[in-house]
């Protein structure tokens, strides 16, 4: 990465020390994604405003343009965490661990927003904030799992041991997703949650705002993931620099 032997006198050179080639590019990617996010968000906002008001549900139906994309982001974040954890255990590369923690944090953010927007819609449509519906139950449990994941990381402090603990726990979290669905399939298969969109539940003129919602929140997800990843990588740099200063003194 750098040919300098005396890296402490070249802060920009030592910034990249210990970072993987992948991470050196993260900052640049983030700029492109950020520009895309800004453009898409403008179109998205306009699309949501001009989308027709649903004849039976009223204005509350517009949560549809936010809620499902948040759900996709949440699950994507948790899958990225598990993949990052698995790759870390397999290859032992620290950048995969930094990717894993980024996925968990952005996933928890998306999942929290999903758990807030969902009940608002449910109150307006079902007449109550919560139902122990399969999808709601599984998502809530998953939210707890990844909060526990973040808590585990913070209680164990920085270091390779924490990374290993977290990676193993993310494997447990991953197997819990199908297991919980299995539990619900067997015991409690009464679902109130609307079906997926393949079944044509979107009215006229609602398709493309929904598409824009997915696009905008997809961009937001990638942007936040890269931002968080970059922050984690810079933290490593900060720790190294502090350690170097300690040695110099």
């Amino acid at each position, binding site marked *: 990465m750098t040919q300098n032997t005396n890296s402490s006198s070249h802060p920009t050179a030592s910034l990249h020390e210990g970072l993987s080639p992948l991470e050196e590019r993260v900052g640049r990617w983030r700029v492109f994604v950020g520009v895309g996010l800004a453009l898409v968000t403008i179109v998205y906002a306009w699309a949501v405003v001009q989308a027709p008001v649903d004849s039976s549900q009223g204005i509350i139906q517009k949560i549809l343009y936010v809620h499902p994309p948040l759900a996709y982001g949440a699950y994507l974040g948790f899958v990225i965490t598990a993949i990052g954890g698995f790759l870390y255990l397999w290859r032992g590369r620290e950048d995969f661990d930094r990717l894993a923690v980024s996925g968990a944090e952005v996933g928890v953010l998306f999942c929290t927003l999903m758990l807030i927007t969902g009940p608002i819609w449910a109150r307006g449509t079902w007449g109550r904030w919560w139902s122990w519906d399969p999808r709601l139950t599984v998502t809530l449990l998953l939210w707890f799992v990844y909060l526990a994941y973040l808590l*585990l990381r913070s*209680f164990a402090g920085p270091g390779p*041991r924490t990374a290993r*603990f977290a990676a*193993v*726990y993310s*494997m447990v979290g991953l197997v819990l997703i199908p297991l*919980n669905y*299995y539990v619900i399939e067997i015991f409690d298969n009464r679902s109130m949650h609307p079906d997926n969109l393949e079944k044509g539940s979107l009215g006229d003129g609602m398709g493309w705002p929904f598409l824009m919602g997915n696009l905008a929140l997809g961009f937001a997800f990638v942007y936040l993931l890269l931002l968080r990843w970059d922050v984690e990588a810079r933290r490593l740099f900060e720790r190294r620099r502090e350690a170097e200063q300690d040695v110099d003194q």
Partner: protein
Amino acid sequence: MNIALAILWKDLITEWRARDRVIAMLLFSLLTAVIFYFALPDQRPETLRALTPGLLWTAYLFAAILGLNRSFALELENEALSGLALAPGGRGWIFLGKMAANFILLSLVQVLTALAFAIFYGIDFGSSIGELSLTIGLATLGICSVGTLLAAMAVRTRLREVLLPILLLPALVPILAGAVRATLSVMAGEELPFSAIQLLIVIDGIYLVVSFLGFDYILDE
């Protein structure tokens, strides 16, 4: 395999000499049974019978968490955990030994707790003892496998006793769902529901494999 047996033997002997963990777990689950009695809406026999499976399993889970928390506490002294990590052979076998010890101790507590529920709540477990034992055994295997893995992690963090239930309870929800469902059916005099037993077997298999493999990364020198 020998390592697993050696660890199991060591844990059982230590517990036999001190007898602190089992007694703590047992007292705790008995107290839970008493507290539940006052938390119930009324004390009619049918209410007690309807709620017992859920209460019993809640008491079991709490007792399990209490016991699992102490499972590795002793190993922290004199860096015994590092010694274990250096033992020849796979670390998965260490996990199996620890898990088996937890399983035996928890099963003992469960039997005595069930007796207490039978006496306090006027429940007759005797007519379906075989089905009930199968259910409890399968569920406890799952609890102890993922519980031992997570206890080994939690014990080496700050606030260790606090962290274990937060890590463990989400993973135990599927087990609890299957175990309560099976216990409800058995206590109502129905046949053991195959779907619940199947679910418990699948969970046991998955948790055993994940914990056996994962333990390799949890122990370090």
